[in-house]
C-alpha cells in the first residue's frame, strides 16, 4: 500500500533521520518529489536511507555515472530531485554510509554550502529591492510583504549555510588529529 506524506525539510540530515525512523516503523520511501514523499510498506527496519547532494543535477551524465556506481555496490537509488539523490540499502547487508572519511565528508558539506550561498544572496537582493520599491511613493503593500517574505527566505538559507559552516569547522578540527 502507498502512503503519501507532504513534508518540507531545510536540513537534509534531519530529513535522512526522519526517513530512517519511518523505515524503522515499516514505511520505506520509494519516491520523492519536492515536498511529496511516497512510502510503501516494508519489514520494520528493512532499509537504511542516505541522502546525498550531487555536484551536477541528477540527470547529468556525470551524476548518472555516480548513481550507477553506488548502485553497483548493492544500494538502490529510489528517487532523485534536482541535485539530490535518495539511496537505500538493505540493513541486513551491513552498515550503509556514503562518506567514511573526513576529506570526503567535508567536500560534500562544501558542495551543499556552495549551492546555497548564491541563492541566499539572490533572496536578500530581491527582498531589499522589493522593500525599497514598496516604501517609495506610491507605496505598495504588495511589494513590502513580498520583500519581507523573500528576505525571510534569505534568513532561512543563511541559517543553513551557518549550520554547514559549523559542521565543516568541526571536521577541520577533527582532521588535525585523525582522518576518519
Amino acid at each position, binding site marked *: 500500500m502507498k502512503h503519501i506524506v507532504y513534508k518540507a525539510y531545510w536540513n537534509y540530515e534531519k530529513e535522512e533521520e526522519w526517513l530512517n525512523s519511518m523505515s524503522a516503523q515499516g514505511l520505506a520511501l520509494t519516491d520523492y518529489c519536492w515536498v511529496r514523499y511516497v512510502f510503501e510498506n516494508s519489514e520494520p527496519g528493512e532499509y537504511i536511507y542516505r541522502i*546525498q547532494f550531487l555536484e551536477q543535477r541528477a540527470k547529468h551524465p556525470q551524476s548518472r*555515472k*555516480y548513481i*550507477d*556506481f*553506488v*548502485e*553497483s*555496490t*548493492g*544500494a538502490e537509488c529510489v528517487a532523485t530531485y534536482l541535485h539530490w539523490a535518495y539511496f537505500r540499502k538493505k540493513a541486513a547487508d*551491513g*552498515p550503509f*554510509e*556514503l*562518506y*567514511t*572519511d573526513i*576529506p*570526503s565528508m567535508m*567536500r*560534500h558539506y562544501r558542495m551543499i554550502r556552495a549551492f546555497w550561498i548564491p541563492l541566499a544572496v539572490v533572496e536578500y537582493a530581491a527582498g531589499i529591492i522589493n522593500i525599497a520599491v514598496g516604501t517609495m511613493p506610491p507605496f505598495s503593500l504588495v511589494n513590502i510583504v513580498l520583500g519581507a517574505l523573500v528576505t525571510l527566505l534569505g534568513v532561512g538559507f543563511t541559517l543553513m549555510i551557518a549550520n554547514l559552516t559549523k559542521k565543516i569547522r568541526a571536521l577541520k578540527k577533527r582532521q588535525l588529529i585523525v*582522518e*576518519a
Partner: protein
Amino acid sequence: MPEAQGALTEAVFYILLSLTQPMHGYGIMQNVSELSRGRVVLGAGTLYGAINTLLEKGWITPCEGSPGERKKEYTITPAGRRAAEAEIARLSELLENGRRILGGEEQ
C-alpha cells in the same frame, strides 16, 4: 625515487593494496573490509572520489576490456606501487619508533 609524498589515507592505501589484482568498485569495498577484518568499511561516495583521484594521479588504471561501465575494473600502475611502497617505509618507521619507545617501557 620520486619526491617525498605525504601520508596516504587509510582508504587510499587499502585501495592500492586491493588493486594488485584487477577489481571493480564493489570488489574493492569487500576486499578492504576483509583485509581490515571489518574495521575499514569504505562508503561508495568516498571510494568513488578516491578512485577518480587515483586515476588522475596515474596510480591506478582501468583494465582493458572491462565488461561495461558498471563493472569497470581497475589495476595498480608502477607509480601506484611505488607510492604504496613509500607508504610502507613511512609506516615501518612509525611502527619501529612506537615499539621502541612505548613497547620498550613495558619490558
